[in-house]
């Protein structure tokens, strides 16, 4: 087979390519130049090439603080998703048939149910008079309601809820690929089930853990709806800041700079991840 020639069928991609090129790629490039523009409340956006926006972003501790908060939230969400997602993925490899289909459906439901609905649900649950706080007070764990809504805790709960399905899917896929004979082999060689899990299953699911973590982390870094409803202007994250700059302060150039730094951060993480999995030894071991 000649791999050097473009098959005619590859031209079928052109319409999608044009659409994304014009309405997605071109605007992204325009945003890049916008981020170097100036802005004043009186005269609005002023064309030019200035680094002012970036200087402001990297020197003002207010903005740095919001980046740090977004980073912190994302790290915690990733860890929680890992802790919850691994056992669930493992559970899914052990059940079959109708039970599996049903569990899978529920696991995926946060991704499919409307974002506003799901977040509104957490809004009701996390409020000072919500189900969770009422239970906490009733059980005597605390005298006063715990601040869950409009706090980092609330955002973390909401994000973990919507992103954990991605972690489950990713780990489940890598657990499914493993050869059951490997665990049996370890057992004939004297490994008890716990050892066999630690020595064989866990290391072999590393690709799934890594892929899932990168996905969850980048998604929570750039999440908007959940932190907007559960934190809003009381607990700002980067994406919310971009929204405010664009639709409230109307300082588009600065909003663009914020957005690009966010993109840069997430892309770097994804690129580093790809470097890791493309490395010779990793590829050799986890094919």
């Amino acid at each position: 087979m000649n791999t050097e020639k473009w098959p005619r069928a590859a031209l079928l991609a052109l319409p999608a390519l044009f659409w994304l090129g014009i309405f997605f790629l071109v605007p992204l490039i325009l945003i890049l130049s916008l981020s170097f523009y100036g802005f004043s409340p009186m005269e609005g956006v002023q064309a030019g090439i200035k680094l002012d926006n970036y200087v402001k972003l990297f020197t003002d501790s207010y903005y740095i603080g919001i980046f740090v908060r977004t980073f912190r939230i994302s790290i915690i969400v990733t860890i929680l998703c890992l802790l919850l997602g691994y056992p669930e993925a493992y559970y899914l490899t052990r059940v079959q048939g109708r039970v599996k289909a049903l569990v899978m459906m529920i696991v995926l439901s946060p991704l499919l149910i409307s974002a506003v609905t799901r977040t509104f649900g957490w809004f009701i649950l996390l409020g000072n008079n919500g189900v969770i706080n009422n239970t906490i007070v009733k059980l005597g764990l605390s005298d006063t309601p715990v601040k869950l809504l409009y706090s980092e805790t609330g955002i973390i709960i909401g994000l973990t809820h919507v992103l954990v399905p991605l972690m489950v899917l990713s780990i489940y896929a890598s657990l499914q690929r493993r050869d059951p004979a490997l665990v049996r082999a370890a057992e004939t060689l004297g490994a008890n089930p716990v050892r066999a899990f630690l020595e064989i299953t866990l290391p072999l699911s590393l690709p799934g853990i890594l892929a899932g973590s990168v996905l969850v982390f980048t998604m929570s870094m750039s999440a908007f709806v959940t932190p907007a409803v559960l934190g809003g202007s009381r607990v700002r994250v980067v994406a919310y800041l971009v929204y405010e700059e664009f639709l409230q302060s109307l300082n588009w150039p600065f909003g663009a700079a914020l957005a690009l730094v966010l993109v840069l951060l997430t892309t770097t993480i994804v690129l580093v991840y790809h470097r890791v999995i493309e490395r010779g030894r990793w590829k050799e071991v986890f094919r």
Partner: protein
Amino acid sequence: MAKLELDKVVKKFDGSLVVDQLSLTINDGEFVSLLGPSGCGKTTTLSMIAGFLQPDGGEIRIGGKNVTELPPYKRNTGMVFQNYALFPHMTVAQNVAFGLKMRKVSAADIAPRVKKALDLVKLPHTADRYPRQLSGGQQQRIAIARALVIEPEILLLDEPLSNLDAKLREEMRIELREIQRRVGITTVFVTHDQAEALAMSDRIAVMHRGIIVQEGPPVAIYDRPATEFVADFIGATNVIDGEFIGSHGGYGTLVVKNGLHIKGIVTLGSQFSGLGKALIRPEKIVVSTEARPSENSLPGRVEHCVFLGMLIHYVVSTEAGRLSVICQNSGGTFKTVGMDVVLSWENDSTLLIPAEAKQ
């Protein structure tokens, strides 16, 4: 190294019997094959010996010790899997060392034992490579080294040669057997390949529908199959139906529908009467153009002739039905299709069995 005993072992899946009251004793250092078609229960039996499956009845003893209730990691068995099951995230040396590590052997002792094991399978230079960097045959040897390094009491082989190409498979048959002899380990070999079982085993247990239908050394299994199933599964065989009319001195006679008499050995005692079958191996029949002195002979006509290189395969139609004949290609002229020939064979090459022994 130890004796392995299976005592009336039973296994059911969803209520149906997969292994039915199976008893088998394998002596110290013996190489025994479990041979049968897929679904005959041989793999299930092996899984119970290894401890992956719990029998629903009966007992398994290794070296006289009852291991029926023990989990796999507490039985001292070494196993080679069909796809080798080498750990892809560990080097060859780490793979081989795994069992020793689990047994808490000190690092200082592990290294020389791993080296010795790799020497045994003639792959000392692969220690630092990953399994996927090795060829199928090399992976196979590492799997053997990994199973043997822990000095197990029993070696279990689950169709270990089936993923190799034909030529390598024949080499590995000899090599595997040689390693087994040198180590002197009691071995259970599961296979569906009759040639493999015949070539390697001290003893073969032919399994069918969850039971052992015949057990014995390869020559006995081949030359004296107890049932039509065994005869058919191991090598090819001609089957001629007829009625049994009596026996004398270990030989019996069968009358075929048109009055023809066929004489042969009766193994299952001489009591049976009624319908019977004569089993004759194709290579035991001689084809000639004219009658020659022989204990049994039958005229016929060549219907097909297939040239196989070393061998020639004829299908000859006779009064007793179509018979397969296999001759050595010893030069000379071949019989051609349509030629009238005479088939002849000895009584000792014919086996008479009762018709109902269909198992």
